């Protein structure tokens, strides 16, 4: 599947949903509260689709653009991402939170690209998590290798062994279109791997019996010693 076909595939679902929500809004019997809820869902779904189009544009311009890499506090960035996503998660009856060290190692990244990766992983986690569960943004430092891992953990149906093998194979050969999960074209992971590559990092995944963690690993910053 080419990125263009994958993009069309990924945009089909939110567009179809927006259309159905709009058709439902035409029902005269709806209460004001029901109508407002449908409108809210329409806005949030449109925003999700727009995020994807913005990421696609950014990914297409990666080669020609210069990205400033700087020391970043991953905990603060994760908290910003959580604040941004909370309305969407609440509307779906789920929550999102940061788990991990309050004062982690700084990492070297481009703030905008890392934010986009985490938004993408979180969006994916929202889709796969069970109602009432929380999605966790987790930070882990590997001091020996000088790497900081920022992951997004969901609690949903486990990936089958076949799907897991496929995912691992695709992750090893990234950047390519990666089939993350059955109904995914893998475009989100493809974009994330492009963004991670631009920051000299890499993406990966961990399978759990009750969900999965998708993560990005980036170089730890040496500036820690000055803090």
């Amino acid at each position: 599947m080419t990125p263009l076909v994958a993009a069309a595939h990924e945009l089909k679902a939110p567009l179809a949903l927006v259309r159905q929500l709009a058709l439902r809004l035409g029902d005269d019997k709806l209460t004001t509260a029901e109508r407002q809820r449908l409108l809210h869902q329409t806005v949030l779904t449109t925003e999700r689709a727009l995020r994807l189009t913005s990421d696609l544009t950014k990914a297409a311009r990666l080669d020609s653009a210069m990205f400033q890499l700087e020391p970043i506090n991953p905990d603060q960035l994760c908290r910003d991402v959580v604040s941004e996503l909370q309305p969407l998660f609440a509307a779906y009856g789920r929550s999102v939170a940061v788990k991990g060290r309050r004062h982690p190692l700084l990492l070297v990244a481009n703030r905008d690209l890392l934010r986009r990766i985490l938004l993408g992983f979180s969006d994916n986690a929202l889709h796969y998590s069970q109602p009432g569960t929380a999605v966790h943004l987790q930070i882990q430092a590997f001091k020996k290798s000088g790497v900081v891992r920022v992951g997004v953990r969901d609690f949903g149906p486990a990936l089958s062994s076949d799907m897991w093998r496929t995912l691992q194979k695709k992750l090893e050969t990234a950047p390519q279109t990666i089939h993350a999960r059955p109904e995914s074209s893998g475009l989100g992971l493809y974009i994330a791997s492009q963004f991670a590559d631009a920051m000299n990092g890499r993406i990966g995944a961990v399978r759990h019996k009750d969900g999965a963690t998708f993560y990005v690993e980036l170089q730890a910053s040496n500036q820690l010693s000055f803090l």
Partner: protein
Amino acid sequence: MTRVLLVEDDAWLAEVEASIITDAGYEVQIAPHAPAAIELVDSFKPEIIVLDVLLAGSTAFALLNELQSYSDTGMVPVVLCTNIADQFDAKKLKEYGVMRVVDKTTMYPEDLIAAIRSVE
């Protein structure tokens, strides 16, 4: 009241479709993924299944294979409701118990109800 099991992993789309089906006089239960659908097949005993293809965890075909492997569940008519309707051959899908295919990207509420009524 005819019992309809709706298997759809998008919670908001499931709500909209369930409202449409309920308004048309059917009893509806929603399963967000294949394992939940299997449980509801046993407890809710649906007379019709409306099934999305691309589900979290496994595809609809894993569920269809499971349903076809038992004589009672294999008889339950299935309406496939999908964003990728153009990728299927309706004749081949009959082997899986799929009687109708509805394209989610172009369907109107009455199309979904017409498809359900046609397999009752």
